[in-house]
């Protein structure tokens, strides 16, 4: 009896402690998670090359960069409080951490997908021919969003399809090889692999909706407020690598290519369909543009429509998003996602 209650107490304490490990207060050790995607490969490189350590030392802190094999799991871990920051898209940031009540700041806006996500049909046809066909994709992902936007552009909705079949991205290429599959929506490097197969027909891709699928580094708002040095170190390290990449540093690009399982040429091809913000000033201009609020409202509506904006969300405006000029979309009393350009501005001004 005693032993059991002791075990219960230990269990509860360990769960709770693990859970509260990454809450805000001044601290010197930080953990950031990332997963493989063309625009996030710099995170792996800046950890391996020592650039992150250099910047962390400069600000007297310690930043550990951890690669997580499963993208959604990495965001879930961040939301659960195991990490101080994570690489994520604007859409998933809004639905998972922000929708889950974890106040999150978009610290670095790294790129937007400009062709990296695509709707691919087996054989001849156009977007309107998807009517009545099954479509394989990772449901509720940016692929799903792209499909919704694509169908919208030809006056169709998801109800006009035969059905959407949730298919793991790990098995997408094998799935495409089977006769059951007629159309898929997926992202790079899968898109380029599938397009190599005869008869693969790209109907619509993210370059048709530029600037809507945004890849970012998001961090816990409270942690950032209490530890501005954490933000400065991340941003400083990031733009040092960006400068290397823009200059075409072969060693850096080759390392990233190999880490993503391709070669230099393959990685460059993927970068071509990614609108990287090499310079912090470009990212700042993008975040401060008038299009971003429109995009976020679109995304929020999509998430609400699919019922994934959080339990009991009464409308698409349930979660508020704040922009650098102080304006908000959604519920201003429940702002859980902040676009903050102040750190990227410091990088642009050379103040780091």
């Amino acid at each position, binding site marked *: *009896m005693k032993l*059991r*209650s002791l*075990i*219960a*107490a230990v*269990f*509860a304490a360990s*769960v*709770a402690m693990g*859970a*509260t490990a990454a*809450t805000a207060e001044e601290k010197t050790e930080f953990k950031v998670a990332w997963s493989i995607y063309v625009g996030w490969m710099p995170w792996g490189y800046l950890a391996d090359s020592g650039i992150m350590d250099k910047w962390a030392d400069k600000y007297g802190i310690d930043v550990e960069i951890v690669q997580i094999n499963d993208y*959604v799991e990495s965001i*879930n871990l961040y*939301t*659960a*409080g195991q990490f101080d920051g994570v690489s994520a898209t604007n859409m998933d940031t809004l*639905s*998972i951490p922000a*929708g*889950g*009540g*974890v106040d999150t700041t978009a610290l670095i806006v790294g790129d937007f997908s400009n062709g990296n996500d695509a709707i691919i049909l087996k054989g001849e046809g156009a977007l309107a021919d998807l009517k009545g066909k099954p479509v*394989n994709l990772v*449901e*509720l*992902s940016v692929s799903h969003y792209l499909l919704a936007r694509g169908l919208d552009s030809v006056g169709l909705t998801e*109800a006009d399809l035969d*059905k*959407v*079949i*949730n*298919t*793991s991205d790990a*098995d997408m290429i*094998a*799935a495409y*090889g*089977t*006769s*059951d*599959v007629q159309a898929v929506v997926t992202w790079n490097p899968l898109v380029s692999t599938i397009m190599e197969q005869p008869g693969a027909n790209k109907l619509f891709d993210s370059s048709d909706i530029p600037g809507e699928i945004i890849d970012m580094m998001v961090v816990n708002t409270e942690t950032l407020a209490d530890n501005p040095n954490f933000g400065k170190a991340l941003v400083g390290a990031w733009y040092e690598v960006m400068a290397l990449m823009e200059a075409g540093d072969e060693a850096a690009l080759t390392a990233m290519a190999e880490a993503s399982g391709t070669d230099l040429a393959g990685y460059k091809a993927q970068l071509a369909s990614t609108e990287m913000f090499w310079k912090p000033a470009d990212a700042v201009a993008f975040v401060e543009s008038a299009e971003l609020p429109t995009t976020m409202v679109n995304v929020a509506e999509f998430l609400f429509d699919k*019922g*994934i904006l*959080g*339990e009991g969300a009464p409308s698409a405006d349930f979660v508020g998003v704040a922009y650098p000029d102080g304006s908000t979309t959604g519920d201003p009393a429940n702002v859980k996602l902040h676009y903050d350009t102040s750190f990227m501005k410091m990088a642009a001004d050379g103040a780091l």
Partner: protein
Amino acid sequence: MRWINRKPGRPLGWILLLLPFLAVLAAYTIASDIRRAENPRDKLLPAPAAIVETAQRVLTQPDKRSGKILFWSDTAISLQRLAIGVGIAALIGLLIGMAIGLLPYVRSTLAGFVGVLSMVPPLAILPILFIIFGLGEVSKIALIAVGITPFLIRDMSLRVLEIPSEMMVKAQTLGATSFVIALRVALPQILPRLIQSVRLSLGPAWLFLIAAEAIASDAGLGYRIFLVRRYLAMDIILTYVVWITLLAFLIDYGLKTLGERAFPWFGKGGL
């Protein structure tokens, strides 16, 4: 009295039975309280009350698009896949297992092959299974069957070989043919053991079912869990996990009862 001879009375027995469950529930509640004190909308460990609320909603509210209550349609499709998959595996396991156990020619041919085959991890050759069985219903049933059949074949053949040779000899002296021996000597002793083996393989069968539904699907218990994981809806996931646990327990209990009722000669001790 020595501790090994002390037994709890009936009421105390019940309390002791419930104790670990209550301890886990209490630990969960405490951990959930601590997390929600910090973030009232924490998704990882929702309050037990919130889970009950979600469960009620999931169990009764029809889906907007299809008009079906997804919980029940998911359950129906998953149980159907499980039943067909396990059924096929049990049938093949019984037939080939008996053949291997009884006929030395078949044993020489297949025993080694099945032994090797049972070591192949089915999840590792998924792409091949996709090409053979497609991505539809068949592939999910096939994954379950492929996953547990080798185990059942091996187990059945070993059980046949365990039948005392005196029995075989006696049946032969009474003039039984190979076929009659299979039907009248081996089968009655193997069927109850088949139920035992199926019970043991239900754990892996559920695993393969959920894996199959996670990979490519548009309905099912595993599909729903992996879908809502995308927005960390642990309240829904936990509802489904409790349900799957309950289903698995009930199926196991049902098979145990079936074994006892259908094969009384086998005795309770064996099950």
